């Protein structure tokens, strides 16, 4: 994502003055990070959906009730029913596991391969660094969506394959961030000191470089997580996502859009869920970025 280079040091060092003031109840109430709490709440709820969907809904997400199709939201069906009479709320709840595992897998691919490349390039420097970073440029120069679609056609359709396709496009961002972090940390005085006191490269890497570059990578991962959900849903929209009747969120939005004229909630509801989750992931990422700013 494009925020890669910008967000990690967002808002750094701007709230140091608050320390030490006496905390009245009012100031606690005022300063309580409601947004952040809400973000965690959203993520927690969605995680619960993936673990125990049965707690939230009694309807079957795959088996519809013929004759009960395209019902408007009501007490019985909180978000109405789709064209085959399936309860939309149930599909969203049960879909969480597909959408989230897809996003996690995608970010995992980008994280492992990308940081691996970046770490290596930043550590060894020189010609190898040049070659790796030019390769990353090549990855960046191929339009992400085109790359994803090609990979899906190559691997075949399915939630995991879509995740890999999205993950592949995230590699470049992770590699660039990791390399710049490694280079930054490497040039720091304490690392040079560690080298000076006879530390081997591997030890320095493990003890100093890695831990010090980790925070921003973690924050970036959170952003990427939200971004991956969006990308997977875009693939679903273009017809390259999970195969139906999987209640994956992107697919729900994509299928629901055909009914906009008659049942707008079919696409609006899953759309808002995606917005809420991605927004929460970004908010949490920002808070990680802030702690990073304070500690560094």
């Amino acid at each position, binding site marked *: *994502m*494009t*925020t*890669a*280079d*910008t*967000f990690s*040091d*967002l*808002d750094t060092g*701007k709230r140091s003055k608050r320390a030490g003031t006496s905390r009245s109840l009012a100031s606690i109430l005022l300063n309580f990070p409601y*947004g952040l709490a809400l973000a965690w709440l959203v993520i927690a709820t969605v995680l619960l959906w993936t673990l125990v969907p049965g707690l939230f809904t009694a309807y079957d997400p795959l088996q519809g009730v013929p004759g009960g199709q395209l019902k408007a939201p009501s007490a019985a069906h909180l978000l109405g029913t789709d064209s085959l009479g399936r309860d939309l709320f149930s599909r969203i709840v049960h879909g969480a596991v597909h959408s989230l595992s897809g996003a996690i897998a995608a970010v995992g691919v980008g994280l492992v391969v990308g940081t691996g490349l970046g770490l290596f390039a930043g550590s060894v420097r020189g010609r190898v660094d040049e070659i790796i970073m*030019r*390769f990353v*440029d*090549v990855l*960046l*120069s*191929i*339009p*992400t*969506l*085109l*790359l994803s*679609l*090609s*990979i899906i*056609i*190559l691997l075949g359709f399915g939630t995991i394959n879509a995740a890999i396709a999205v993950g592949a496009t995230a590699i470049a961002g992770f590699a660039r961030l990791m390399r710049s972090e490694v280079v930054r940390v490497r040039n720091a005085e304490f690392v040079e000191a560690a080298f000076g006191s006879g530390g081997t490269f591997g030890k320095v890497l493990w003890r100093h470089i890695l831990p010090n570059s980790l925070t921003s990578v973690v924050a970036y991962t959170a952003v990427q997580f*939200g*971004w991956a959900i*969006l990308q997977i*849903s*875009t693939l679903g*929209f*273009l*017809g390259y996502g999970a195969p139906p009747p999987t209640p994956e969120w*992107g697919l729900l*939005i*994509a299928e629901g*859009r055909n009914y*906009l004229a008659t049942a*707008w909630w079919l*696409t*609006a509801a899953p*759309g808002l869920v*995606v*917005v*809420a989750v*991605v*927004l929460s992931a*970004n*908010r949490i990422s*920002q808070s990680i970025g802030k702690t990073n700013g304070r500690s560094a």
Partner: protein
Amino acid sequence: MSRYVVGRIGQALLVLWAAFTLSFILLQAMPGDAVLIKFLNPEFGLSADQIREIRAAYAIDSGLLVQYANTFANFLQGDFGYSMQAGVPVSAQLATNLPPTLKLAGLGFLAATILAVFIAFLSTMAPFAWLKNLIQSLPSLFISVPVFWLAIMLIQIFSFRLKLVSVINPGPWESVVLPVATLAVPIAAPLAQILIRNIDEIRTRPFVPVARAKGASEIGILWRHVARNAILPVLTIAGVLFGELLAGAVVTETVFGLNGIGGLTEKAVSNQDLSVLQAVVVISAAAFVTINLAVDLAYPLLDPRLRTRNGATA
């Protein structure tokens, strides 16, 4: 300096060639091929022998290396081949589809910049902390909305419900308003975040109170300094955002039914129209490489600190 320039250009060409090769390998590995997809369409009712003959006529089964060499040589001469699905030369398709996308992307980027500046300044002028927080979280909201969903919603609301703009047979302005808005929203987000950070930073600098004491308005001070400081990050992001713009174009063009490179790409992928895809990759890679090259070369000119550093190393 000139050695640095030549080196960067060389690197750029290398990246371009690598992108060509990588995409060639990727595309050739796809199952099925455009000839099969087109002619196996049962509407034609072709026999196995007839399809074999057609494949031979298109020389689709010649060796990979031969095909690679041919394609590469043709590309060097500016010949992008024939689109199997549309039945027209790829260059003709590009000629009709590239200008609308460039227009869309250019206007989208412009709108995004304006929107970002607007948000950044609004947030500094907000009288209450909660309002400031709210405005500052707008960029996060912007990148959280699926682009295709936004596009569909905008059409429903502004075109079909409020009947403000026509999406079918639109006038020259009508045709760009909604697509540009759709495209601008996700791109404005990172720009706005940079600007907000810049403004916060500048406000803490010592010269601000001095200038204010001299009677300058705060907005005026911010405007002068932010504008100068924001050019570099905006340029950097412009390079990275190009791919994003194209991805956005695929979606917006699909939803709004515009002709352009995005829509062309989407169709070519589904029909595995390799010559079209190859051309799209090379063109967008060329654009990416050129923009980044330009940004890299422009950096030292815009930022004196970098000039000395680069001058020293290159």
